[in-house]
């Protein structure tokens, strides 16, 4: 199985947001692979391996694609170190791209690479847009299974049954190969991904995506990374979304610590008037 995993580098979300000249100031920021994209790589790896003895299934390939500046090569290498096989780095500045530009590039790469599935994070934790997976599926004329919390490959290896967290429960949706799957947090639960090879009793750690091993880091240095440009995909045409300004939300007024529950209830009733 050949799986394409689009990834994005994002500023580490644990950093405090700063504004400069009306936009987010990323000077000196540290960067990471978008967490949901890391989970997508973890999902792809679990699909193509026997988790119990850590062996890769024959004929499997995981290709990482990323649009971003030259510096993003570092985060792409991290994905290779986790276990992806090769990468395509489409060099561009963040200002040149928006969801539709990214989708145009990814659609062209899908057409060229012909993967069996695209698996990606449900959203990037900087822009929080949650658009690219669905837009890409539309552009390709492929089905989609978004917000995947579980994923099971059918016995005939021709379809996925995806557990999706929706309002009021979990919906199970079946999609054939050649679908776009976007993953949610719980896809990294110990038994969330079933590929019919890893024993049902096998538990993954469940603590998030796997960390690159030292061996993986060494191997990643030799894995192929194709360099490309936006223009190679006819996508250097400009973004349609323009960010005008960014502001920090006003801080909440300082709260108060109350001595006991009786005081709390009195204040909620008389002062806040919410009881």
């Amino acid at each position, binding site marked *: 199985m050949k799986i394409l995993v689009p990834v994005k580098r994002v500023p580490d979300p644990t950093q*405090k*947001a700063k504004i400069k000249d009306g936009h*987010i100031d990323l000077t000196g920021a540290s960067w990471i692979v978008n967490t949901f994209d890391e989970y997508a790589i973890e999902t792809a790896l679990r699909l193509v391996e026997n988790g119990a003895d850590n062996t890769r299934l024959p004929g499997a390939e995981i290709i990482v694609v990323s649009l971003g500046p030259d510096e993003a090569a570092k985060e792409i290498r991290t994905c290779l170190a986790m276990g992806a096989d090769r990468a395509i780095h489409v060099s561009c500045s963040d200002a040149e791209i928006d*969801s539709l530009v990214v989708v145009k590039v990814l659609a062209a790469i899908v057409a060229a690479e012909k993967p069996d599935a695209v698996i990606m994070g449900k959203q990037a*934790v900087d*822009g*929080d*847009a*949650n*658009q690219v997976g*669905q*837009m*890409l*599926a*539309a*552009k390709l*004329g492929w*089905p*989609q299974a*978004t917000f995947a919390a579980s994923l099971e490959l059918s016995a005939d290896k021709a*379809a996925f*049954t995806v557990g*999706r*967290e*929706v*309002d*009021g*429960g*979990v*919906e*199970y*949706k079946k*999609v*054939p190969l050649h679908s776009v799957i976007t993953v949610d*947090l719980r896809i990294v*639960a110990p038994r969330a991904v079933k590929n019919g090879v890893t024993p049902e009793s096998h538990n993954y750690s469940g603590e998030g995506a796997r960390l690159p091993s030292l061996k993986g880091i060494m191997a990643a240095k030799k894995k192929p990374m194709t360099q490309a440009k936006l223009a190679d995909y006819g996508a250097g045409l400009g973004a*349609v*979304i*323009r*960010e005008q*300004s*960014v502001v*920090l*939300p006003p801080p*909440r007024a300082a*709260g*108060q*610590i*109350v001595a*006991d*529950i*009786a005081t*709390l*209830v009195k*204040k*909620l*009733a008389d002062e*806040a008037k*919410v*009881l």
Partner: protein
Amino acid sequence: MGNVLAFCEFVVSSGGAQLRSSALSNLSFARLAAEAHGGEVVALLIGPGAAAAGPDAAKYAPKVVVVDDPGLAHYLAETYAPIVAEVAKAQGATLISATASAVGKDLAPRVAGLLDAGMASDVAKLAGKDTFVRPVLAGNAYSTVQVTTPIIVVTPRQSEFEAAAELPAAGTVATAPAGALDALGAEFVRLDAQKSDRPELSDAKVVVSGGRGMKNGENFKVLEQLADLLGAAMGASRAATDAGMVPADWQVGQTGKIVAPNLYFAVAISGAIQHLAGMKGSKTIVAINKNKDEPIFQVADYGVVAEWEKAVPELIAEIKKLKASR
């Protein structure tokens, strides 16, 4: 000049068919957008029961289009998105909106992809015809974005737009054909519903949430007592849902539900950025935690430094006392 097509979710029950509260928020956003676009609101209802829910939608929108076909029995983005795109074209829409619910977030970007439309997700405010304010970085910043395509797709946040009021005169209801339905091989298998008599988390007036400090699902029972006393919805932090203490759809946070109730109780929740992003729009926030240094106290209007084991039963007793005194 252009119309605003508002995709509206509805429920069909034995008592009839009516719009969901999330649709009413969407219609309230759509009215603002229609004014900016110099057009009118067209509500779109898709699926079995759409025709029955049409008159309810017509209380809020001057024009309602219903697409009712047995082939649409279960929501699938693959079949719904082309219908939204076709109706948008037929109705001369320059903006398409759908509440940022589980369905809206799945559907709207696919519609945008079909129409090559730029999209603004999770919109908190309309700043102009094509300009929107939306949270980024888990709600730690607000970005104003301009969308420059001829058709714009928007998912407004339910918590940011009040339910639309009824119009003085009801609108008209028209039907549109479903067309050739092609699910592209996708199938709805089943829904494992979480049954609850409590209000929906997304639009509850009061929310009671528990965190990692609750230790196990059994301990949430006392929070449920508090919730039921207040007619509140139950919520939880990611730590609690990840640990399997409570259902995943209770999760409040950047990656869970975004809530903005009048009153929010955070019990044994530390207050990770992830969680705060989902609830800091609440009007009044109460934090109960045994550790006074937890970040939750920085956003709380009222904090009580106490163990939940003692504080929550006391809270229930005090509220009962208050209610009895009225």
